[in-house]
């Protein structure tokens, strides 16, 4: 059992940057994700977040995803969420939030949707 969040090194896929997220996304770690994405967003790049290895998603974690969507929309960019883990899927379904998140079954689908 780990309390940590692991974020992969950004992979520039031409048209979008890919980040793979692993571990717990909760009140302690959600700010770390927001900070890391902000650094990429500052360069004007779109982002795909692969959430397949997120083992726990707290309300702060789902809140962070919603914040990212709004921030990218404001700046004319896009963020997409790929390969949701069961823990992420459960929260998204419970709160009926899939209508606000750009969700793709696979990383490839998400990258393709952004023209990468």
């Amino acid at each position, binding site marked *: *059992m780990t309390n940590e969040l692991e974020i992969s090194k950004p992979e520039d896929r031409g048209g979008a940057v890919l980040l793979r997220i692993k571990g717990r996304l909760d009140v302690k770690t959600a700010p770390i994700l927001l900070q890391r994405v902000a650094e990429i967003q500052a360069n004007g790049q779109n982002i795909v977040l692969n959430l397949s290895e997120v083992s726990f998603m707290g*309300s702060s974690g789902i809140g962070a995803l919603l914040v990212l969507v709004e921030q990218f929309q404001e700046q004319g960019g896009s963020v997409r969420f790929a390969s949701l883990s069961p823990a992420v899927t459960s929260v998204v379904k*419970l709160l009926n939030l899939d209508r606000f998140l750009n969700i793709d079954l696979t990383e490839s689908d998400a990258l393709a949707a952004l023209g990468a």
Partner: protein
Amino acid sequence: MTVNHPRRPALGLPEALERFATARQHGKSIQLPATLDSLAAIREWLDRSGALRGLSTGAADMLDLALYEVCANVVEHGYGQDAARSLELWWLPSAVPEAGPAPRGQFFLRDQGPPFRADRSKETDYDDPLVRKRGCGFGLDIIHRTMSAVAYHPETSAGNITVLEWDPRKIDQHDETQHA
């Protein structure tokens, strides 16, 4: 737009204290330091205590999450993440025979911090972009959508007591609604 949480009547104070006393006699418990890191232990405790028996992975995830959110509120707002303080979580399965494979029952959270309410009656309006941009304050929605009833009794003779009624059929019904 605000939406009222459909809910079962929550336990009143006398019954809550009586049930909590029963939980202390016959239930399973875990004591957690008032740190966010410590809350990762809830899942293992749920498994050990039998509360996850017969549950789907999704339902187990939601139960773990709802209890995490209740405890995190106390850790953050009640105790200010003071590791010297602690909170107790208790599980008391229902004595009534189960209709399904997974047990129903009650969870009790006891803390001694300043009162913090977890039983508000309105849920978040996610259609409001400002709400989504705020990105926080969604924990109570998770708690109320997962649990059948939530009652908060502050400053009782036993401390602050939060009673959470758990019936896995509520999660099953939610899944069916989502797929309808």
